[in-house]
């Protein structure tokens, strides 16, 4: 059996069994959100603090809904700007919150490693809701959940991640998770936004989007931050949109059933064309729906909950594969 994790700091180092178990558990929780009464008592009596040191709308709401649907008691702590500029250190903030007997902490922070720092200091479970350019593990899991829902499994698939790889935590979590599940991952973007030695994470680099998309089963379009242009990393938004923007013409290179994902919020007309964002291939809203289920599974398992999947793993996997095919 796989031991429970106390923290979810990243997808790096997670085994395919662990990822499968998380996705299976999320599948069970997804059904809860479809009910008229969207609530289970799984985390009744558990207190969760959502510490958001960086602006976020959908991730924060998604975690909040996941917590409420698990019957946990949750509080939100939102600070704009870093803890340093506010005067109180991250350590003091976290220790104060722990002193109020909080069981779990969900943290979003602009500094890579901030969740690791808390995990080393606190007794509480720590769930990383995005740390700097490091990882965003629940986003990685919800992207994989969405893909598995479409595909049934991860066999013989190719995923292209396009955009600002250098500053993207979404990209890193996707890469760790997908590579572990045996998916071929190609990253694409301006060379100035591809970090050094990224190949060693098990991906290939292709700066030409048309070539990258050749026979792709899915493309994950990353948000381009306008401040990267101001920092001199690419010349203009217009040129970016022309060369690396995902539109229906360039998607002709991909497989006909190629799925289009975006972690949001989208810059329509920049990294993704309107018609693609709203088109048949888009699973962008499915990602958002699935985010709640995945976060329910993460919180549940990190709180010490037993895996919901039965021990007949083979049977269950086969059943799911069959179900997945029907959906696809």
């Amino acid at each position, binding site marked *: 059996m796989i031991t429970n994790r106390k923290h979810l700091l990243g997808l790096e180092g997670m085994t395919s069994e662990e990822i499968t178990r998380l996705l299976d558990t999320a599948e069970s929780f997804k059904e809860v959100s479809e009910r008229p009464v969207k609530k289970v008592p799984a985390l009744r009596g558990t207190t969760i603090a959502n510490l958001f040191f960086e602006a976020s709308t959908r991730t924060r709401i998604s975690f909040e809904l996941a917590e409420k649907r698990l019957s946990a008691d949750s509080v939100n702590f939102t600070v704009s700007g870093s803890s340093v500029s506010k005067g109180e250190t991250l350590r003091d903030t976290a220790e104060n919150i722990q002193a109020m007997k909080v069981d779990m902490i969900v943290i979003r922070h602009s500094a890579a490693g901030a969740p690791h*720092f808390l995990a080393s200091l606190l007794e509480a479970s720590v769930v990383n809701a995005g740390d700097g350019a490091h990882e965003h593990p629940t986003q990685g899991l919800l992207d994989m959940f969405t893909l598995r829902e479409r595909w049934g499994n991860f066999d013989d698939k190719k995923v292209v991640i396009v955009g600002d790889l250098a500053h993207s935590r979404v990209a890193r979590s996707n890469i760790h998770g997908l590579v572990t599940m045996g998916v071929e991952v190609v990253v694409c973007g301006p060379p100035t936004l591809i970090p050094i030695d990224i190949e060693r994470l098990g991906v290939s680099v292709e700066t030409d989007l048309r070539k990258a998309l050749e026979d792709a089963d899915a493309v994950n379009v990353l948000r381009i931050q306008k401040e990267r242009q101001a920092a001199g990393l690419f010349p203009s938004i217009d040129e970016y949109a022309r060369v690396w923007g995902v539109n229906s013409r360039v998607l002709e290179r991909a497989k006909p059933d190629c799925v289009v994902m975006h972690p949001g919020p989208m810059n329509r007309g920049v990294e993704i064309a309107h018609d693609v964002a709203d088109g048949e291939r888009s699973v962008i809203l499915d990602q958002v729906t699935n985010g709640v289920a995945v976060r329910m599974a993460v919180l549940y398992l990190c709180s010490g909950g037993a895996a919901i999947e039965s021990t007949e793993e083979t049977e269950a996997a086969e059943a799911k594969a069959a179900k997945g095919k029907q959906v696809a």
Partner: protein
Amino acid sequence: MMLKLANLNHTSYLIDNVTIVDPAKNTMYAGHVAVVDGKIDAVERGRAKEASLPIYDGGGLHLAPGFIDIHVHLREPGYEYKETVASGTLAAVAGGFTAVACMPNTNPAIDDPSVVEFILKQAKIAGRARVYPIAAATKGRKGEILSEYHELVAAGAVAITDDGSPVASAEMARRVMEYAAPLGIPFIEHCEDMAASGAGVMHEGFYSTKLGLKGIPAHSEEVCLSRDLLILKSVRGAKFHAAHMSTKGSIQLIKRAKEDGLPVTAETAPHYLCLEDKDLVGYDTNLKINPPLRGADDREAMIEAIKDGTIDCVASDHAPHAAHEKQVEFNAAPNGSVGLETMFPLLVTHLVKPGHLTLPQTLALITHKAAQCLGVPGGTLARGVPADLVLFDPAETWTVSAASLHSKSRNSAFLGHALTGRVKHTLVDGVNVIPAKVGV
């Protein structure tokens, strides 16, 4: 009956029953030392015979010239909550160092003779290690106006640098070298191209990509070093010392410059010999250092450069920071690790034990060779020099902990490391300067 060294209370005496390590002569042998009026009078093979002087028992320990660390941040004046001249020199003698050179990134910077005099006075009051102040190359370390080198040297400064920052412009670097040349003092450069480093917090490579931390490329150091070496070619009489070298590319540049006969010396720090960027997995802020811990290739190149002499000496870059400053997000933490008390055992553990160098060759890096880089005396067992001595056990293994350190700050990159080699007694001018109640 022999006396105990812990109770040393003479100025003229013998230390018997020791293994002499003489790095300047590259020898090691069983012997004894005679100290007369705080100066070395004789170093001889074999046991001491009947003598008129009191005899102290060296207890079979190794005896060597006191170590010299030419790159230390004592933080005083201005940052006394991190370290003071007194606490820093206590850490120094606990680590076997009888002399340290302190860097000018204090507040105010060491850009005025009064600051040099203040530091020397504090060192005298502390009464532990010798302190050699290094003055700021430019006023306030701002890279705009030259400091008054003649005044500073007259007050006791031994070199110039803007360490902590580079002298950013090529024009100013040239003027610094020109103006310092007639004084015979070295210009010590902190080689870094600030634009290339940008907001970087660790070495740029696979691990910065993996950890999502902004990288500092190797060429940030190399661009500045190569610029200075080009300038050095055209400035007659200048002496140049490259501080804390960390990359393979820098080693190639230094090697080439030495082959061309340029007056260049170079130092590295122990952490570049035994830690790498991959050790930052886990985001331990005690390992956040500038220049950053580099890749495996760089580390291996640094060991080779020590073996072939491209690197002249090792200095700790002892950089104390208070606990609350390091217990923050990785991006927000200040750079640096304390190093005075771990340098000697790190060199034994990572150079002597694997067989890269012998013990005398290793100690040369922190004795006479270090002194030569800075142009200060010390580091030898020559007759008539001050009896600055260290006695150590090269085989004792100990584990570095916050409690084992004497510096005011405990931000060591080596907490938890099991190291071999431990200093037992440190003598300056023949006087035991490790207080008994502190011990080591």
